[in-house]
Structure formats: structure tokens, C-alpha cells
């Protein structure tokens, strides 16, 4: 459970956010004005900020800069109608951890909050990742499952590594397209689905229990069966 501060002036959206995040088990406070949001952010303890960029009082960008200048390092997602690459770069430079363009889906937001909130401290030097009987060597890029060597194409390897690093959490389609391909656009063809199915054919099909699981209408996650 996290205490999340939502700074958003549109009541339909803030109500939707509050409802959706509460259902996921979080505690949500809503500030409808930039100044109020800034005072709360600096004086109370939150685990997460969701900030709209265009809000009355202080705009979201200046608000975030003030928060970061005050030494608050709580993770932040910008949720905004300003979706250009320039806007995105500005947002990330001001210190946001992620940037979502409206309209957004609750599942996407939830997955991204999850990815940031439980982001482990950057591990020292890992040389391998293990899930169940699947092991990947990060240095030699050698992948084995139950001792069998698996030959992966570079994109399949990148996809697998991203899924393993998510540590059992869901990665949405757009998160995977961003991470593995650097796409800032939604492909018209089934690029992701095709590569997931290739990856499955190599690491799941020949073995008893599948590791890659589809989360309907959201994305994929990788975990060992219990």
C-alpha cells in the first residue's frame, strides 16, 4: 500500500484516479491546485506523486522542479495532455521518473506506478538473472533453461531480459515497445505479439511449465509457476 498524491484539477479525472488507485489498495490524496499540491508535497510524506502538467496555481513543471530542489526524491509520473517529444524531454529533465500522455488507461498507469515504486536500488554488478530453472548470463548473453542452451535473437534476448528484470510485475505493451525497441509510436502490425510468440516457442514450449504469462488487454509478465 502506498500513499499517493494526485495533483490534478479536472474532477472527472481525479475521481477516476482516486477510485482506480484505491481499488488497487493505495491511499490517495487529491490536490486541485498547484500551490496546494506543492505545500502538501513538501510538508507531508507521500510514496508517490502523479502530477498533471497544466494545473492552476503553479504549473506542473515548476512544481516538480521546486519539489526536486527541496530534496524530495519521491517517484513522480507526469500525466499530461502535452505529449510532444519536447514536452516529454522537458518533463524528464525536470526530474519526473515517467511520462504518460492522456488519455491513459488505469492498467497502464498501475503498471508504471508499480514499476517505479518497487524499483530496486540499482544492484551492484549482477552477472546473471535466474527465474525458476531459467537462467540468463548478462555478460555472455547465454540463456539456459533446465540446463538446455537456448539460442535467442538479439530482440528476443532484450525482451526476455526486460521481463525478468520486472521481477514478476506486469509490463504493458507500450512499456515493452519502449524498452526493447525504443518505439515512441504504436506499430500497426503485431511487432510485440510476434516476438513474444517466438520467445515463447523457445523458452516455454519445450518445457513443462510456462514462464511468460499474458495479462489480458494489459501486457505480459514473467514468473515461475507456483
Amino acid at each position, binding site marked *: 500500500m502506498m500513499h499517493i498524491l494526485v495533483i490534478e484539477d479536472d474532477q472527472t479525472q481525479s475521481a477516476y484516479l482516486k477510485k482506480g488507485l484505491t481499488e488497487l489498495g493505495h491511499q490517495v490524496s487529491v490536490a486541485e491546485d498547484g500551490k496546494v499540491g506543492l505545500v502538501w508535497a513538501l510538508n507531508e510524506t507521500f510514496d508517490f506523486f502523479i502530477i498533471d502538467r497544466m494545473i492552476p496555481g503553479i504549473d506542473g513543471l515548476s512544481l516538480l522542479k521546486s519539489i526536486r530542489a527541496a530534496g524530495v526524491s519521491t517517484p513522480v509520473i507526469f500525466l499530461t495532455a502535452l505529449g510532444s*517529444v519536447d514536452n516529454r524531454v522537458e518533463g524528464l529533465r525536470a526530474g519526473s521518473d515517467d511520462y504518460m500522455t492522456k*488519455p*491513459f488507461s488505469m492498467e497502464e498507469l498501475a503498471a508504471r506506478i508499480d514499476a517505479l515504486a518497487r524499483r530496486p536500488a540499482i544492484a551492484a554488478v549482477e552477472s546473471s538473472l535466474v527465474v525458476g530453472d531459467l537462467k540468463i548470463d548478462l555478460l555472455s548473453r547465454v540463456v539456459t533453461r533446465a540446463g538446455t542452451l537456448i539460442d535467442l535473437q538479439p530482440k528476443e534476448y532484450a525482451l526476455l531480459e526486460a521481463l525478468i528484470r520486472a521481477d514478476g510485475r506486469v509490463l504493458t505493451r507500450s512499456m515493452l515497445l519502449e524498452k526493447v*525497441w525504443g*518505439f515512441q*509510436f504504436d506499430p500497426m*502490425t503485431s511487432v510485440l505479439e510476434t516476438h513474444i510468440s517466438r520467445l515463447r516457442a523457445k523458452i516455454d514450449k519445450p518445457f513443462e511449465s510456462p514462464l511468460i504469462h499474458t495479462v489480458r488487454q494489459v501486457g505480459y509478465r514473467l514468473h515461475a509457476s507456483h
Partner: protein
Amino acid sequence: MPRTKWYLSTPFRIALLAEAIFVTAFLVIFGLLVIEMENEFFDQQELALNNEYRFLNDVYVQGGVWATVAAVERNTRANVKGRKIYLLTDSTGQKLAGNIDDSVLPSQWTLTDSLFELDADERYHSAAYTIGTMHLLLGVNGFEVSEIIARAMVTLIWSGLAVLMLSILAGKIIASRMNRRLNHVTDVLAHIAAGEFSARIEFANMSDDIGLMASQINRALATLETHIDGVKQVSADIAHDLRTPLTRLYILIASLEERSQADGHGQDIFDQITVQTQQINAIFDALLRITEIESGTLKDTFTSVPMQALCDEIFETYQAVCQDHGQSLTFESAVPINSIHGSHALIFQMIANLIENAVQHCPIDTHIRLVLAGNQISVIDDGPGIPIAEYDKVFQRLYRLDRSRNTPGTGLGLNFVQAIAAAHGAHISLDDAAPGLKVTITFPK
């Protein structure tokens, strides 16, 4: 940045042309002067020769042959510098007096008013006279005249050369001063072309012709910038004003869907509503993004993009996609291509769009080729192709071929390709691959 060499610049060429006209005029005037001087000298010499003859003739009339011979000998001795020649002969041609030998005379020595050449170096302006039965040849050295003229010519050539050097120097100074300003204008316009609409010409307050032109250009740029800022502001406003209701719509659909799920009816309609809403959003996003690419603001993010690696990545990504569609994709790279200054993400999207177009609009068993050669990237399919008459239309916004109306897509795919190509200064061409379509992107070298 293209720079004019100083010797090719307009001011320098004008300076050189002025110099050429000046020197030509100078030569013509000086030439006429020389001819005039030469004639005057000649006349003077002739007068002097005639005067001497008249004197000697008087001596003959008063004193006879021997007095004349004595007078000629006296005059010959007085002629210390050898400027004059004398030859007095009797009627048979026997020398009586003088300082040249009768043997040097040409057979027909009675020529009058001519130049007499003693040898190659010494030319005399000479005249032949008759005194009684005697013959008299008088000559005065013509060398002086030729020398004066020759000296004048040498002076003329040297001063002409000096004027030429001076005018090249002056032309170069003027040209480089002018070029500094013209190059500055070229720079400013290049910045504008690259999308930096705030660039201005600095010397626009100077009141000469170029300064006036510069201030007009600055005024035009200011108007342009205002308009472009207006468009950007409108885009941002539309983005916000349209996205907010769209977001609410998404939320309302989700809430309604949740409520109606209790009785399980209408899920298919909700799915359709969601797809349509996503389509609206996709077109809207695509239009905004095309506007952003066209605005040129992304140029700041350009780096060196290795094309071979990028195409390898695309090939790996789409080979599997094509196979899943029952098609095949091959990648051929003929000449190793150099890196391109641009955006990796945008070039990737551009080529991905072209391949996705082929995948979507071509039937099963279509063979798609990605070809990288020199500074060109081509995507070639052997599918149904596009009628040649439609080549221009496919780049129109939201244009779709009749047969494609029911395939998914925003109708903006090729607009993306075009906007991205333009942002990289690249050129797109469509060709009939007979059968099929060949799309070629040519990057600047």
C-alpha cells in the same frame, strides 16, 4: 554552410569589370596620344632637316661646290654625338663629305622622306636633296622618338599592372567586407530553414541598400515567427482542449462498462466504442506528432545514426512479423553506407512505417525487400502496387486508396514518412516495381 569564394563574389567581379573597362579606356587614350606624339616628332625632325638643306643650298649658291663641301664637313664635325648623318656626293655618286660611307647606301638612295637604316639598331629619319649637281643625304637619328615611345609603352604596361593589382586588392577588401554581411544573411536563412525562427540579421540598422534589404528580411521573419508561434500555441491548446474531453470519454466508457458488466449485456458494443475512441486518439496523436516533426524542433536531438546497424535491427524486428503474415522479408546492403545525421527513433519509425505499409496492403506470399545502398534506403514489394496516377495523392493527409479503406490505419503513415524524410533533408520517390511498389528514401550525401 556554402561559402562564396571571395574571387567569385559579386562585389569582386564588379570591381574587376570596372578595372577592365578603365584599363581598356586608358590604353586607347594613351595609344592615340603616342601616335599623335610620334607624328609631331616626325614633323619637327623633317623641318630641321629641311632647314639644314636650305642653309647648305645657300652656301652653294654663294660659295660654290668647295664652300658647300667645307660647310658639310664643319657640320659633320659639330655633330659630336653622332645624332645626324651627312653624305654629300658628286653627280656620279662619289663621296665628297659626310660621316657615312657611300657604300652603305642602298642602290636607289634618292628615296625621300624615309627612315634610313644604317643597321638594325640605328634608324635615321632621312631625306635626300639635290644641291647643284651634287646629292645630299641628311638624316637625324629616329631612335630618340622610338625610345620615348617604347619607354612610354613600358610605363603604360607597368602602371596598368599596378592599377590591376590595386583594383584586385581593393576588390578583395570590398568583397570580403560585403561577403561577411552576405554570409551572415546566408547563415541566418539556414537557421530559419532548420526551424530556428528566432534568428535575425544583425546589421539591419545600417542604412545602405543591403542594410535596408536586411531590415525587410527581418520584418518578414518576425511575421513568420509570430505565425509559427501561433500555430504551435494552437496545437498545444488543441492538444489540451481535445485531450481533456477525450480522457473523460475514456473514463466514462470505462465506468459505464463496469456498471453494465453486472448483467453481461452490450460488451461487444463497448469493445467497438473503445476501438473507435482509440482510433480518434491515434489520428489526433499522429497529426500532432507530424506537426512536431515538421516544425523542425527535433533537430536539436539529431546525432550520428549508423544505418547498417539500424537496418539490421529493423530487419530482425520485422522478419518475424512478415513471416507471421505469410510474407517474407529480406535485407540487402550493397555498399556499406555511412552514418546519417539524424534521429535514430525517427528514421527507425520511417522505415518501419514503409515495411508495415507493405505488410498491411500486400497479400500472402508477398516478398518484401529492404535494400540499403549508398545513401539510399528502399522498401520494395511485389504486391499489387499503387496506380501511377495515385503516386502524388498518397502523400496527402488522411488519403487512403479505395481498396484500403477497410484495413486498419490512420491514413497518415506516408505523411509520417514524408515529414521524417523532410526533417532529414531526404527525398522520397515512388516507383513501379513491376509488379509492386518501390519506395526509395535518398538521404543527402
